[in-house]
């Protein structure tokens, strides 16, 4: 069984996580972020004490079969509504900076 490693998060790891989360973090703020990570992950490390061998992850409060429905279109035809909150919408599309060079 894989367990949590006691390794601590360094500034480089914090930078990588911020990148993965697509949140810009200034270099000057990375050490404090790494420290927050270490405090939170240090706290959750207690989970290592629990014997979870053979335990299945919980899936629902009481056994329940998901409801089924006809596989059909139930909504649509509301382009204006979908675009109404967009910061930049043009000609029926969401507009974003150029993606392909």
């Amino acid at each position: 069984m894989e367990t949590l490693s006691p390794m601590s998060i360094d500034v480089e790891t914090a930078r990588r996580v911020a990148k993965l989360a697509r949140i810009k973090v200034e270099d000057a703020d990375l050490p404090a972020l790494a420290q927050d990570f270490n405090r939170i992950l240090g706290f959750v490390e207690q989970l290592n004490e629990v014997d979870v061998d053979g335990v299945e992850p919980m899936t629902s409060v009481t056994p329940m079969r998901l409801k089924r429905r006809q596989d059909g279109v139930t909504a649509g035809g509301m382009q204006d509504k979908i675009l109404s909150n967009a910061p930049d919408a043009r000609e029926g599309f969401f507009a974003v900076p150029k993606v392909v060079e």
Partner: protein
Amino acid sequence: MTDLNALTIAEARDKLRAGDITSVDLTEACLTAVEGSGALNAVVHSTAEIARAQADAADQRLKAGDAPDMCGIPLGIKDLFCTEGVASQAASGILNGFKPEYESTVTRQLFDAGAVMVGKLNMDEFAMGSSNETSVYGNVVNPWRGADDTPLTPGGSSGGSASAVAADLCLAATGTDTGGSIRQPAAFVGITGLKPTYGRVSRWGIIAFASSLDQAGPMTKTVRDSAIMLKAMAGHDPMDSTSADIPVPDFEAMLTGDIKGQTIGIPREYRMDGMPDEIEALWAEGRAMLEDAGAKIVDISLPHTKYALPAYYVIAPAEASSNLARYDGVRYGHRAKLGQGDGVTEMYEKTRAEGFGAEVKRRVMVGTYVLSAGFYDAYYNRARKVRALIKKDFDDAFAAGVDAILTPATPSAAFPLGQEFDDPVQMYLNDVFTVTVNLAGLPGIAVPAGLDQNGLPLGLQLIGKPWEEGALMNVAQAIEDRAGFVSKPAKWW
């Protein structure tokens, strides 16, 4: 005569039906109270025009004799609920300007039943917080004050809901609870707050935080009001596949107050080191009240309790990092101003850096880390297994004959706003008694039960069996009847 805005739902319903009052008058009383409540910062978007129109329509229905229980009742709606055409931004800068084109299932059901919306209520950003200090709208202030008049937190994340109900700005409010966000603020302001069984209430149109834990519920002045309001909020919804297709009973009819012969469990693991004496004393009083009501009290063990907060702080951030990935500056809300040559990645990174507050960023990044390659099993899957063991603790207790479980609602009374924590984990400890209930998916209710030495409210929590909110509220009623909690904050705002 009691001010109209100070009525309970049950009182107002009966007076409305008898024709003694109108919803228009009741609503105006609440709107006046809202106007004078700026210092509390509980209401962040007033919806006075909508409220007046809804009140008018409710009076017509009342006249026609077609009035459900909630008809004409003024409510506050937590900013987490999408309300059509009305700002709904989860107290976050990233949803600045967002006006949904649709109505959440909960608010639609309440409005279909004739309820009136007086305004959108403040909260912690994306419901992440226990003190309502992470909101883009600023802190909410508790209407209760301690001996030295220090401004206190109303708790969080449903702090605006708690403050608004305690200050009589509305008769009741919607809240949501992911780790204690209904029950902790309810306890901090001396009102009743119910988190229903996971799946009892549709999550559709409620801005998601941690989808396997989030559940909406009523925050009210009495247990009876929670029963009335839950009935209007609950039920299967095809738009939420996790909402349960089981009948919604008449919860109010189940409030007999008779709990003779029921077995109430007292879990020994909830007796924490360093717990204040007055919390301990309140818990003992609760035990005595239930004994007096004819219940049998037994000591029980929920052995995995201490692992609930650590499991929560893996699972909730993991789900949040996934849910909040949608805030990318493309479809709604804030988009950062971009520099020359910035592409989509810079747009995402700058938008999210500007739009999210510190606590939200912290949790999204922790979630990203625990889900990242190489750590998924070690953190996320392990936490999900511990969650199963926490649920099994409760299953075992109920199988052994326990009908409900009594615990304190919070480890302290409301604390001062602006308290500095050098460690985010310290704030997380607020949810130590409530978070187990979310992990196990069970119903839990906080009921005001007494005052501390500074005159601040303290609450007890009762935890029930899945889908048995009615029986749970009946036990809560037995506490309410005996605690005789009638204190109100002195008006200073």
